[in-house]
């Protein structure tokens, strides 16, 4: 299981590693070779106790790392922009999912479908997904390792992450930032599906007898470890914006919620 972001990140990792190994491996070999060649017991090796400068060596030792870093820097500039987590992915209208970190579980709200789930994230394969992430508790970090990317979840603030799965399959996402006792088990299933299966999944969630409202939200906000998957057939419009506004009296948090704080 993978996706375009994860593939690009992996390729970048391999490229950058390969480039650096061109210097790292020779350095290790030089360290070992010089140590052996110039060991004190080796009388045949040259000995120049006062040789401490050489213009050629100086230019080389400043030059090689500088060229290397120059190459890497252009790579960084390009790829940081290309793989910016906030940048929408090409390939049509993304699916919008709002993710809320709770102790120690994840709430996912699908505003376009008016549904929500706990600890299960279904996405259509081959279609961009755009996450809006926040936390109602301590700082969390949202990641789906197979798809790449990672973004902090902070109370009163919204961060964004854009991902895509290449093909249908099951993966695991989790919180990467230690946040207390339930942290190790704070995972969720990620189900990438065909569009048809995804529509079927939406219908299954809608068939649930539970609704996301202040009362059920208070219930799932109670700290719990390895909480079971829960479906909410409905989620009020603006619920996520309300969480952003409600968890902090910060002026800037209020600003971001001006349009949708309607519950």
């Amino acid at each position, binding site marked *: 299981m993978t996706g375009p972001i*994860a593939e690009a*990140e992996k390729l*970048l*990792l391999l490229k950058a590693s390969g480039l*650096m190994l061109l*210097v*790292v491996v020779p*350095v*290790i070999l*030089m*360290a070992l070779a010089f*140590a052996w060649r*110039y*060991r*004190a017991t080796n009388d045949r090796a040259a*000995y*120049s*106790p*006062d*040789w*401490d*400068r*050489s213009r050629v*060596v100086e230019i080389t*030792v*400043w030059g090689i790392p500088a060229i290397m*870093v120059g190459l*890497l*820097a252009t*790579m*960084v500039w390009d790829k*940081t*922009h*290309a*793989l*910016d987590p*906030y940048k929408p992915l090409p390939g049509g209208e993304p699916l919008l999912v709002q993710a809320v970190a709770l102790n120690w579980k994840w709430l996912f709200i699908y505003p376009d479908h008016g549904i929500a789930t706990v600890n299960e994230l279904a996405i259509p394969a081959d279609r961009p997904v755009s996450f809006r992430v926040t936390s109602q*508790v301590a*700082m969390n970090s949202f990641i789906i*390792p197979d798809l*790449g*990317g*990672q*973004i*902090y979840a*902070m*109370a009163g603030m919204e961060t964004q992450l854009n991902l895509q799965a290449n093909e249908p399959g099951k993966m695991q996402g*989790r919180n*990467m*930032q*230690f*946040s*207390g*006792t339930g942290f*190790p*088990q704070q995972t969720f299933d990620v189900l990438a599906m065909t569009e048809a299966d995804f529509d079927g999944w939406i219908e299954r969630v809608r068939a649930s007898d539970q609704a996301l409202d202040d009362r059920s939200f208070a219930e799932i906000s109670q700290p719990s470890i390895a909480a079971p998957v829960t479906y909410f057939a409905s989620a009020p419009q603006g619920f996520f914006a309300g969480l952003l506004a409600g*968890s*902090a*009296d*910060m002026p800037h948090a209020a600003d971001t919620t001006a349009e949708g704080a309607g519950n």
Partner: protein
Amino acid sequence: MTEDISPLLGRLGPDALPLYSWVAMGGAMVTVAGGLGFLAIVTWLGKWRELWSGWITSVDHKRIGIMYIVLALIMLIRGFVDAIMMRLQQALAMDGGGYLPPEHFEQIFSSHGTIMIFFMAMPFVTGLMNFAVPLQIGARDVAFPVMNSISFWLTAAGAGLVLVSLVIGKFSTAGWTGYPPYSGVQFTPGVGVDYWIWAVLVSGVGSTLTGINFVVTILRKRTTGMTLMHMPMFTWTALCSSILIVFAFPALTVVTAMLALDRTVGTHFFTNDGGGNVMNFMNLFWIWGHPEVYILILPAFGIFSEVVATFSSKRLFGYPSLVYATMVIAVLSFTVWLHHFFTMGAGANVNAIFGIATMVIAVPTGVKVFDWLFTMYRGRIRFEPPMLFTLGFMCLFVVGGMSGVLLAIPPINYATHNTTFLVAHFHNMIIPGALFGYVAGYMYWFPKAFGFRLDRNWGARAFWFWFTGFILAFMPLYVIGLMGMPRRMESYANPDWQPWLIIAFLGACLILLGIVSLGIQLWVSVRDRVRLAAEADDPWDGRTLEWSTSSPPPAWNYTELPIVSVRDSFHEAKLTGKPIPTAPLTASIHVPRNTAVGPVIGFAGFCVGFGVIWFIWWLAAVGLALVATTLIARSFADDTESEAFPGRGTGIS
């Protein structure tokens, strides 16, 4: 807050005892037994007077340096116990196995990091600077000897708070970085985070004073002819490190004080509500935290420079390059802090610029590695233990540098941040990079401090255990980090990780043997000290000034201060057969008198910390008053120096 707070004991009650887990109880008992055992041995040997007047109240930079290193070695053991417990837990913890409850595991990873950075690495590097720098620049002492003692005792007070937390109450569960809002009262009530805050705060003030002391010492106390470009490389790195301390540590003091206000007084700097903003904590913490990495590692680079030149019997290659590279690193270290939180949602321009700035540091660092390599080139290399540690460093450090550059590439960081890949990276910098340097420095300068060398065979064994142990313990963490394993996992469900974690535990066992070897080395060397005392004044065919005085040096270091005109002045003197010229002694030497100001202020700092942690307000007030009265009383002391009469054993060679 609803808990009962008694005016006498604050929130301290019988439930503060570690009865929640047998492992914690055992740790507490070992700590108490260790403390009592130490008191018993000192009493048994009748050494209290010697301990008090020779060490505790001493303001001699060499003795303070040695005390720093003793503290560091004790805390190394304490921090290592945490480490191997974590490794064992993770080796077993597949599907909820293991022997540690989550709450205990969380305290252990928090105390491990806190101890290793603040109470192992910092005291170790400060101790080496204390011991060697005044000797290397031909000074009689540091610029402010009493302040030096205060610095040490504040550091010891912080370490004391961490040790006490093992017995009374609990330690933080918020990691060594103490990120809010998790470290706020909302998520971590109780005393744990307060112990972390006050240990860091109290010792951090000591570190700031050390930085001031060494900047002034190096700039003002150099002997005649010791121009900046004649200074040994270690002194240069100590200067850069001290400048970094002066600029960086206030940020740590401020950020921990703000967190303390949030927790104790109810302010809202970093809380989720009331207008707090956690991002300010991350920024302030890492504005200290990134320079801190270089505060720790630059002096280690200095030691490697001394060691590689001495044991290659050759001039240090590219000295001016190394000086400039060190300065460049010091300046750049303040421009990269944001790379610790690329995943916080900053824009692509910001992330890219901080990523590139981080990589730029690889340039001067690469220059240093090449300069060490070319110092060995056409040398005559002796494989004494300090040189082994230096070679091990060169081979491993470049790997850590490479993983560091990978982490500095923001898109790669998005995938690897908070994984064990990151854990492997910073241990790769701090163990081979910093700690190997400190151990090399400890073995290198030990004969100068005590007049006999450390046993060579056990030193070599220690190196091979540390070297192989490091590889086994941390290379697997790179692998499972790339597989997505988060740091700080008390248990996990992915069977692919377990074999790697078992290998990592075996690596930790080898490192344990490395630490045991260091202990045996010390034991064997003290036993054979007469044999090992041969040529102790200059056991390594040294090049720099400190090897020209006796081992151990007199309290005033040099009876007649040397006049230098070249770098490697002692080597030149041996080469030409002419001793280093000295300034004739025209008056008697004045050495600062012992004083209890340092230990009293350290004790007072401990009381302030302990008092605030437990809401024992009278104790905190008494501690503060004690600091104030001690400083005022000291300012009236006129007779602070005694005359010394160099006689027997001044040992000018």
